[in-house]
Each structure stands twice: as C-alpha cells, then as structure tokens.
C-alpha cells in the first residue's frame, strides 16, 4: 500500500490584519503564521494510518518555495517515509492547472496505490488540484472523503478503496473505487496526531528530495506564471455594501443593539 499525499503550506490569516499589497497582487504577509493546509493535515494522517494498518511507503509531496520544506518535515514527523519538494523559482505564479501538472509529472513513474489531496486549500480554496491530478493521470477521483478504507490482501495495484464522502444536499454516500485512485480528504476524517517540537527535530536530518522543473521534464513555457492560463488581476477587500452596518461597542451593547434592530425590522 504505497501512498502519495500532496500537501501545501498556507498562511494562517486568523487574527492577522489583512492588508492588500500595493498593486493588488497579494497580501502583506508579515503577520501571517504559516503551516500545513488544514485539510492536508487530515490527508497525511489518513495516509499514515493506512500505512500503519497495511504497511507500505507514504510519500509527502509539496510544490513551493524553500520555506515550504517545513510542511514536509512535519509530514515526516507524523510518519511519512519520504518527502519530495518541487522547488523552482519558475513555479511562481502557477495556476491550479500548472500546480497539478507539476505534481502529476512528479507522481508519474512512482509506484503508488493511492494519491491523497486535501479537499481544498485554506488560502485560495479552489478545490481544483485534486481533480486536475486525477484527470492528468487518468485516475478515478472521489472528492470530500469523510471515511477511507482499503481492501487488504491484494497489495500493490489492483485493490479497491471504500470511501464515504459528502455529496450535495447534506447527503453522504459510500463508494468503492478501483486503485490506484485520487481521493481528496475532508476535515474530520480522523484525529490528526500531534507533532511535537521534538518530533520535528528528530527528522531534521531526514532527506528531502528536491526536484526542479527540468528534473520533472517540464518546459519553461509551461511553468509558473508563464504557463498560467488563469492570471490574477486584482486582489481586494470587498467594499462595504449598501445597507451593511458594523455595530461597535462592548459585546453586551452589540447584542442589545442587534436584538433591537431585529425586532424593529421584523427579524424576530
């Protein structure tokens, strides 16, 4: 049971003041705390748990800058066996398709039964990469998994996975999918283990395979912003709309005022 998990390092913007860079091309990042995408944390845990049950090798893979190695180390500390870092300045500015293409190039030629992604990422929140990967690799896809089991015995290719996943209208269903497959993981599928500072330090010396565009056999024109077919025009905080009102004061005052307003306007 070999598994590849795609993980992304994202900014935790909670508590931070969101300040748009001049030119509207990004955010001031000074106040952000960085870490693994929440969904990807669950995906790593799912992969490690499957390995603990069925044996095999789990490979964590990320595409990103030098600092992003942090999430790979964390994944190693959680129990992943190998780490692959797709790192090339030329990757900057990639759209989801570009990211998926690079990931697919790195995945091809490896032996795996399952390719796990988070359902979405906490920053751009596109939820596309997993789907694109399935398309690029011609694999079946199950999105938003809330429970994941694999049929034992077969080992290597040829097995199946049973996946419970969310579908529209608040329904959930269970599907059986042939392996290898791509599964995108929803939060709450498990209880990710804690990674202690010591755990991270213990893997400080572990090897991380670094691959650039050339190593992946990709042409410069396909990479990053050069290859992006979706380009950012502007990033902005939506202007306060008509009729919107921000209440100020202590919590009690706000609640009181809100109740009054709801009464006045027939909301209660």
């Amino acid at each position, binding site marked *: 049971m070999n598994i590849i998990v795609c993980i992304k390092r994202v900014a*935790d913007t*909670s*508590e*931070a003041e969101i300040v748009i860079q001049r030119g509207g091309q990004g955010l001031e990042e000074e*106040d952000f*705390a*960085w*870490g693994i995408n929440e969904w990807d944390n669950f995906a790593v845990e799912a992969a490690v748990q499957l390995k603990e049950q069925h044996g095999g090798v789990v490979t964590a893979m990320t595409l990103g800058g030098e600092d992003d190695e942090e999430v790979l180390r964390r994944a190693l500390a*959680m129990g992943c066996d190998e780490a692959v870092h797709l790192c090339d300045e030329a990757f900057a500015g990639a759209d989801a398709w570009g990211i998926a293409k690079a990931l697919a190039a790195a995945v091809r030629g490896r032996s795996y039964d399952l390719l796990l992604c988070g359902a979405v990422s906490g920053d751009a929140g596109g939820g596309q990469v997993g789907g694109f990967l399935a398309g690029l690799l011609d694999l079946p896809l199950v999105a938003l998994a809330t429970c994941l089991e694999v049929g034992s015995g077969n080992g290597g290719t040829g097995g199946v996975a049973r996946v419970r996943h969310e579908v529209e209208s608040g329904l959930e269903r269970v599907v059986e999918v042939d392996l290898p497959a791509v599964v995108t993981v929803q939060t709450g599928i498990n*209880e*990710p*283990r*804690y*990674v*202690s*500072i*010591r*755990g991270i*330090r*213990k893997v400080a010396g572990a090897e991380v395979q670094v691959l650039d565009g050339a190593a992946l056999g990709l042409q410069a024109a396909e990479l990053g912003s050069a290859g992006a077919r979706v380009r950012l025009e502007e990033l902005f905080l939506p202007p306060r709309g008509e009729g919107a009102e921000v209440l100020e004061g202590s919590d009690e005052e706000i609640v009181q005022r809100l109740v009054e307003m709801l009464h006045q306007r027939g909301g209660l």
Partner: protein
Amino acid sequence: MLALALATLVWVLWQRLALLRAAAPSPRWDHLGERLRRLLVIGFGQSRQPRYRVAGIVHILIFGGFLVLSLRSMTLIGEAFSAGYADLGSGYAAVKDWTGVVVLGACAVAAWRRVVVRPARYHDRHARSSHTPEALLILALICSLMLADAAYEGSALVLEGKGGGWRMPLASLLAWVFGAVQQTGGAEQPLLGGIHLAAFWIHNAVLLFFLCLLPLGKHFHVLSALPNVFFSKLEPSGKLKPPSHLEADFDALEVVGVSKLEDLGWKELLDVYSCTDCGRCSDHCPAYAAGTALSPRMLSIKMREAAYAHYPLRGKVVPPEQRPALVGETIGTAELWACTTCGACEEACPVMIEYVDKVVDMRRHLVDDGRLPASLQKPLAALEKRGNPYGKMARKRGDWVDGLAAEASANGNRAVGSDRSEGGDPAPCGKGVRILAPGDTAEVLYFTDSCAAFDPRIQRTAVAFAEILLHCGADVGTLGKDEVDSGHEARRFGEEGLFLALREQNLLAMEQRKFSRIVTSDPHALNALRHDYGVELPVLHHSQWIAESVASGELNMQGIDDGRTYTYHDPCYLGRHNGEYQAPRQILAAIPGLRSVEMERCAGRSFCCGGGSLSLFNEPECERRMGEIRLDMAAAAGAQVVVTACPFCLINLEDAIKTSGRDEHMEVVDLAELVAQSLAPQSAAMESESA
C-alpha cells in the same frame, strides 16, 4: 519456623525489589540531614496524620503501639531460643500491656469505621474491588497479636500465682478469666501450661505470617512508608522532574516520558508500593470531586496491581510488549489529561507520595507519541508560531501598555523612568509600566505572560497593578513584543520541547535588558521563572510586591465597606507550589473595614479552580466544574466576593459564576483590582506628591 518465615519475607521483598532495580534512577541520596528530619517528623512523628482527626489519631495509636510492641515481638521470638529472653523487667511489661489495651481500642474504632461509619473516601468511585476485607484481616491479626500476648502473660500470672493488678490490665483480665475457669471447671495446671505455650506459639506464628503478608497488599506500607518518607522529594513541589536525570540534552533523548513501569524512577515505584489506599489524595483532588475519570489514588493502586502482575513473585517478568500499555490501558488517557497539577494530592498524602511528576511524565510520552486532546492542538501550535495560546499576533503583546500610555498622556502623567530611555521619542509607557527595548534598563521587570497581555478581562488586572506600581513610584518595564508565553502549562501538558523553545526566547529577551527584580501577576509565570527557568534574580508575585508596599507604608488604602463578605482563594501555584499564603491575607487585613472569612479548604488545602492557561482549552468530561464546586465552598463560608491572585482562577471562577447562575450575588476580583480600587484617587495623590 522462624528461619522459614524470615526467608520467605526476604525472598518476597527481594522479588518486589526486582522492579525497583530495573527502574530508572531517582537521585534521592542528597541532603541526608533533611531526609532524616522528615523521617522523624513525618515518618515517626506521623505529622500528616491528624489532618483527618479520628483516622489520624487511630493510626498514630496503632503505629505508636507497633513501635512499643515491636521490641516485645522480637524478644518473644528470642524466648523460643533462650528462656527468659522476653523478660525486660516489670516496667516495660506494664508499658506494653497498657499499649496492648490502647491498640485493641484503636483497632476496635478502626473496625467500626470500616464496617459501620464507612467514610466516603474509603471507597473509590473508580475502584474495581474493595480493600475493606484486607483492612479487616490486618486488624484481626493485630488484635490476635495483642490477645495472644495477653493470654501468654495472663496464664503465666496464674501459674506463678501472682497478680498483675492495674499495672497490667490486659494480662490481669485474662489471668482472672483463667483463674475463674480453673476454679469452676477444676482445670489442671497442665492445661494452663498448655495455654501458655499455645499463646506463645500463636503470637509468634501470627507475627511471622503478618510480616510475610505485608508485601502482598496495601499493608506493604508498614515496611515501605518510612523509607518512602525518607526518600521523598525535597525540591519545591512546583519544580518538575526533568525528562531524564542522566541526559541533560532533551533532543538527545532516545525515549521521552514514561510508557512502562520501568521508565519510572525507583522512588516513584516505591511510592506505588507504599500507597496505603487511604484515599486522602483523592479526597482532596479537584478532578475527583468534579467527577472526572481521574482519582490519584487509583493511579497508585493500578500501577501497583500492574507491578505485582508483571513482576510476579513466582515465574518470569512479563516483558513490556506482552502487557497492557501502562499509559492508555492500565491508566487511561482521560485520567492523565484531567489533572490540573494542583498538588493537593501530594500535600494530603501521609506517606509523601508524588503524583504531579508521574502525570507529567506520562503526558510527555503521550505528546511524543502524538496523542494529545484535539482541543489542545491549536493552542499549542499557536504557542509555537505566535508565542501565545490564543493565536494573537505576537507584535500586539505589548499593546495593553500602549493603551495605558495613551490614557496616561491624555491625563498628563508619565511613567517613572520613561525619560531615561535614550533616543528621541520616549518609550511607550503607561501608568507605572513602560515597554523596554533591548538595551533598556528598569529597576523591575513586569513579566505579564500571555493571559494578562491578551485577555481583555485580565488586562484589566494588569492595568490595576500598573496603577499600584505608579503609586509606589516604581520603575517598571515589560519585555513588550519580545516576551513569549512562559511555557509553564505547555511543560506541564508534556510538551517539553515547546517549553524549552519558549524559555530560550524569554531568557534571550531578558538578557538584552537590565533590571534587578522580576514581578508577575500570574502565579504560573512565577513558578516558571523560579523553578523552570532557574532565574537567579528575585522573582516576586504581585501580591508579595503589594504586601511589601503596604508594610512599608507606600500604599495608603482607603476602606472598603460595602457590606459584603470577602474570601481569599489560594491559587495552587502561589500557595501550595510556592508557599505564599500570607501576603494576600496581609493585604486583605490592611484594607480598613473589609470583612473577610476563610473557606474550609484554604491555604495548603485550597481547592483548584480548574487549572491554568492550556487547561482552559482542555475541559475534561466531568459532572460538575471545579470552579462551581469552589464557589459552593465560598458561599458556604458566607462570602459574596472571592478574591484571587491568578488570572486563571479569575477566569474559571467568573465562568463558574455565570454557569451556576450566581451573577446577581457573587463576584470575583483580583487582589490588584481590589487594592487599586481602595487607593486614594491617583491624580490627587500625584498632585499632592508634586506639590
């Protein structure tokens, strides 16, 4: 028989010691003088017994009797080898006979309590079996020792035709019975001789049986309690055991924490053998009272059962992989996460058993294994990334001081010493506190810690304290955004690596600034600075600062006479773990007109509010919150206002006021708020000073 019995005893003890020999080291051979003192006072002096009046006195009587009679028991054995050996003169004979009476009486009371009174603490909610049969068996054995000796003496009296009189009431009583039987039944001398001999052998047999029985159950303490007291922890209870006594470099450790019996130190295993199952620890444990999964006594009992099962008297040691996991199975994780490390159990235990170190060591293992309550992951990650458990931005840590500064400059005030900072703009300063940049000097460093820096409610206590500092004319600074969480709770929740990283940052920030004392309003920070950081400068709690200033006349407090009754709640990390019970009480006493009462559980017996910092993110499943139980105690004492001196006590108790619907008639305040409120209006004081 003697040889056989002694051989059995030695063999059993040797088998029991096998686990201690396999255990991790415990460096407990230092300060022998102090250890001897403890042995005399707490061991032989039984100083912790009378906290439970009846049980304590009964135990002291039986223990005293045991000491007096052990001489008798030994000489009676000697008698078997050489006649007359047991005769130590009429003086000792009288003393030991009276002792027998006292012990019999004490045993009767003890049995009565076991069978009829049955105090709640005798039976643990989580216990699978009752230890009453064992207790009764032991009482019966003790009584038969007394009676056999009396029969031995009594029959001798009749045989010799002597009377014991009041000097030997027990022997005389039996002599009288024997005499009466002899007269009415016409029994012969040989029968009495037989009784005499039988009593002698019964006494010796029972004694040896008793000795061999001890290391098999809870009465092992008869043998192990005294050594356990001798080897007890001498360091302050707030000082945690390091992850390893052998390797100082945490990162170099192969294993962290305790995951099997052998990972415990030998002294900690001696603890487990010595537990008397008296239940005093659990009776004082807030987590037990709240109905969580935790009962400290059961930690000892379950570990002892595991020790006996895995190191059996006969047969091979069960290897760790074939046992149920010590952490997770024998001891449930819910038990371990429910402990607030308040130390009430250790304070109550008559034989000095230690719990906090064990709990933390088992948590260290869980953390290393990634098994942590889900609710704690976010705050721990926030501690790592932002230096506080709330995930607030690190650069805003000093903002409460800026707020004060804005307010102060609006009022035309300036903090003392603010003009000393070099460069153009004066450092941000408010009331008595300013933010120190690297290189700055202040007389005193105010270590705020995360709660006072970020929690809006607790900021108010920090502001109140700043007002007091201004009154005192103190030159006080904070580390501002360079301070991070003290890591006190992170360490106690088992995340040693994170604690070490936080400590390093704080120590660096402190090194970059000059000051000669540290003050903090958070007892957890106090404990961290004193016992986890090993800071050499004096570290004061704000209650100590205020008490000093009151004593020196710097603070002139007006009366508070609002018709309400106040009571002081001792925070665990100020009181039990740092021994400061007086300063807060001196302050309350110095406020004219303030009426205050003590709760029954006060000072060393204080009842934890629910725990600090990370505990707020980790509420164990319980029947009733600790804070609510504490409020019941305050209400029972007749108080409407609970005064405390710890941010987390304040938060927990305020929450409890809300959840128990007491908003209308109870309030919680921090000492600093109370004092600030009773100070003469600040501006007036300032003006009169400058005038």
